[in-house]
């Protein structure tokens, strides 16, 4: 199982993502100017401040050559995980519904948050049980998830809300406490909190984030079988 982790100028958490993914498989960086995904079986669009996040978080990164390949990869059913800035990029690229807006508190906020698993049967959560609670750090200033009502209704119907902030943990003001969403097809997933920073008790405060990477491995290796 091989992960490819995109690297934009301004990415910050890309090495952390590579190291986290290496707990369950092989992983390497893919430079934003490369169109070749080099045989990656799952893509991670990492956190950070791609292109400085000037204008609007994620707005410029979505047009990079590597992202063009990722968009094609996703349309062919490949697994794509977007974390924080990566989530913003995937929304800007319309691979995920909705948009991310500035936190209601208008500040960058860094906090360990708790997340409730809404669905334990997706390609990104199959190592978790529905109703399980995950403790994962979040750190961003542009993380208020928004989708209009019609979109939310459609998302509910097709089970696209995968994680919600536990009561008291939705500091960014996301609509309906939505913390993570997937696309209709189920192969693209984005969240603001950082599972790659919760893979080791010593430094993550918990290792709950590992289950996201483990789920992806199960999904990919299940496809092979």
């Amino acid at each position, binding site marked *: 199982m091989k992960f490819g982790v995109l690297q934009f*100028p*301004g*990415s*910050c*958490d890309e*090495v*952390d993502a590579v*190291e*986290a993914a290496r707990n369950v498989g092989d992983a390497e960086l893919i430079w934003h100017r490369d169109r070749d995904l080099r045989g990656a079986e799952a893509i991670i669009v990492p956190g*950070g*401040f791609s*292109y*400085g*996040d*000037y204008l609007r978080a994620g707005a410029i990164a979505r047009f990079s050559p590597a992202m063009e390949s990722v968009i094609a990869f996703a349309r062919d059913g490949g697994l794509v995980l977007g974390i924080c800035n990566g989530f913003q990029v995937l929304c800007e690229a319309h691979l995920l519904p909705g948009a991310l807006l500035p936190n209601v508190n208008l*500040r*960058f*906020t*860094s*906090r360990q948050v708790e997340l409730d698993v809404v669905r334990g049967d997706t390609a990104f959560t199959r190592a978790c049980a529905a109703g399980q609670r995950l403790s994962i*750090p979040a*750190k961003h*200033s542009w993380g208020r998830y928004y989708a209009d009502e019609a979109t939310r209704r459609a998302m509910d119907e097709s089970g696209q809300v995968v994680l919600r902030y536990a009561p008291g943990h939705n500091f960014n003001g996301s609509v309906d406490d939505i913390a993570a969403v997937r696309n209709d097809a189920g192969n693209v997933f984005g969240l603001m909190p*950082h599972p*790659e*920073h919760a893979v*080791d008790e*010593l*430094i*993550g*405060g918990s290792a709950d984030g590992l289950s996201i990477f483990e789920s992806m491995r199960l999904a990919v290796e299940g496809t092979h079988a």
Partner: protein
Amino acid sequence: MPETATLPTVDDALALGLTRDEYELVCDKQGRPPNQVELAMYSLLWSEHCAYKHSRKLLRTLPTDGPHVVMGPGENAGAVDVGGGLVCAFKVESHNHPSAVEPFQGAATGVGGILRDIFAIGARPIAVLDSLRFGEPSGARARYLLDGAVSGIAHYGNSIGVPTVGGEVYFEAPYEQNCLVNAMALGLATRERLVRSAATGPGNLIVLFGASTGRDGIGGASVLASAELGGDGEQDRRPTVQVGDPFEEKKLLECSLELLDRRLLVSLQDLGAAGLTSSASEMASKGEVGIDLDVARVPLREPGMEPFEIMVSESQERMLCVVEPQNVEEVMGVCEKWEVGGAAIGTVTDSGRMRVLRDGELVGDMPVRALVDECPLYDLRPEKPAEALYRPGLATVAPDASAGEALLALLSCANLASRRPLFERYDSIVQSRTVRRPQEADAAVLALPDGSALAVSIDCNGRRVAADPYRGTIAAVLECAANLACVGAEPLGTTNNLNFGNPEKPHIAWQLSESVRGLGEACRALDAPIVGGNVSLYNEGATGPIYPTPVIGMVGRMPDARDCAQLGFARAGDEIALVGPFTPSLAASELSKLRGEPLPDGLPEIDLAAAAAAHAVVRDAVRDGELSSAHDIAEGGLAVALAECCVAGGLGATVELAQGDAPGEADAVATALFGEGSGGFVVSGAPEALSGLSAFVSLRRLGTVGGERLAIEVVDGARRTALELTLVDLSAAYSEGLAEFFA
């Protein structure tokens, strides 16, 4: 040499901050009056900021050598060996005056500047800490500066992907007009990748890379840093604001490290205060060579810039390097990959002269030694002030307040309350090394690849230094080392930023020289040599000087990251003990500040050797896993330390205290509870473990962890309950103290 502009006069020199004598000396060195380019360059390099003309002699007294030191003061950052083939580079720097003018950009570019110092020696930045001082937060100016500075640090540090893992902030009236914004950074490098800044090899090329050059900060930091801030002067300095671009710096950082990894650079230097002027001249001086620079080859952001403007511009996010001619093409290729601009703008020569050209025409020509090394150094004329320099503030706690009221007032006061509203704005975990985040332990702890860990702390209580510059500085060094001991780390090296008033005034000179004396003694006693630092003088406003504030940063190491302790109580039933040579006193304490009392003249004596021995005992006990928690006693004394252990651990405690060693003192109970001093730790652990410790260090059993409240009884012949507060009340006071200032 062709003269395009009319020759500047001695009045121009005075306006640029040179004295009449210095101007004459420049004329001597040049053998003629300097032209505009030359005068601009001399005035910057001969400023306090670049030449350290009032502090250099004192700094020479500091200990800078030790078994772990790999690079001492003089390079862009110091470095110590941390084992496993790695070195840790670190340094603290101030951006006080720019932050007083525009706090957001001032603080942001302060972070940018200290990070460049770290990667200039080839180290990848792994952490930032900030040390901040503002006026009392009830004032609108203090709150404006606080919010701006914190936002600026967050913006830069978060965006560039370096965690801000710790810091400190104090609010005191003397900082009202002149805030302090100091930032410290740490980096990691393999020993082989370290690079120095000396330019060598005549014929080699000088390459400028990074952002283009604009009129930012023309005459900015350097001139600003050498003049007192006047009331209305801010207006005039507006055009000099430098704007930071963390995205550009992120690319610059990756580009610099890749250039070093590919061994393409002979030497590397960041551009900071005084821009090209200081970076090029200092590279030439260190390498004992000359440099020719052609300003027409410098990529500009604005049209029509004069040669002197290009030479002194403080545009951010730029680096200068020396490259062998055959490598220039590859260097440009790496710059192109990272979308960083680069241009060969000059050559190393064997002339010993700094020559500035414009399109080949000579517009400035100076001996490198005169520029960099021959600024006159001044002797201080220290004199202890006859009268108090600082006025007491308003009382907010009555002398007869109950112990419980006093504890709540202390926990919620701006200097002691939880720093969460501040550090939550910083990414403290990026790069996946942070074993102890802010407020989890007294020092931040960062894991290293071999399983060991670094610990780092930054500290200085300026009020205590104001009361006694010598002992107050020793106390600041001890506090840093105590913070390291609490997590199980041993000091490797120290950095410092001397923030003082105008050293030409005898009483400031006295503060400075006493403080440096204490700094040297304490670092010697702790085997924590000074590997770098910074000096910021002339920190005065209309109402007088700041508190003397020698900010101390210390880096330590522990063999196993898994052994580091936490500050919160961890287990009901653990025994609590006070360890170390702690002699509490209300002199210059936080409680006496809240009572509106004047600063005392002098602090009680400190037994450095005994304190250092206690640090070693606590450190070893932590490493051996014998303690559940460890926390040093600092502002607010023993009662506040106990309350912090309770709040952090979510556990109460029942404690019994002897009244103290000063029977009959009117404030005996308050002294026992809230007195401050160096050398004391609150630790908790199994009773047998604590018994084991008492063989090596003075240890007083205080009580037991458990329950929902903190109860402290002071034994006073007939015993009486001094205070009893619930965890809920303690937490509320602690967490609300600063929050309101960020609303």
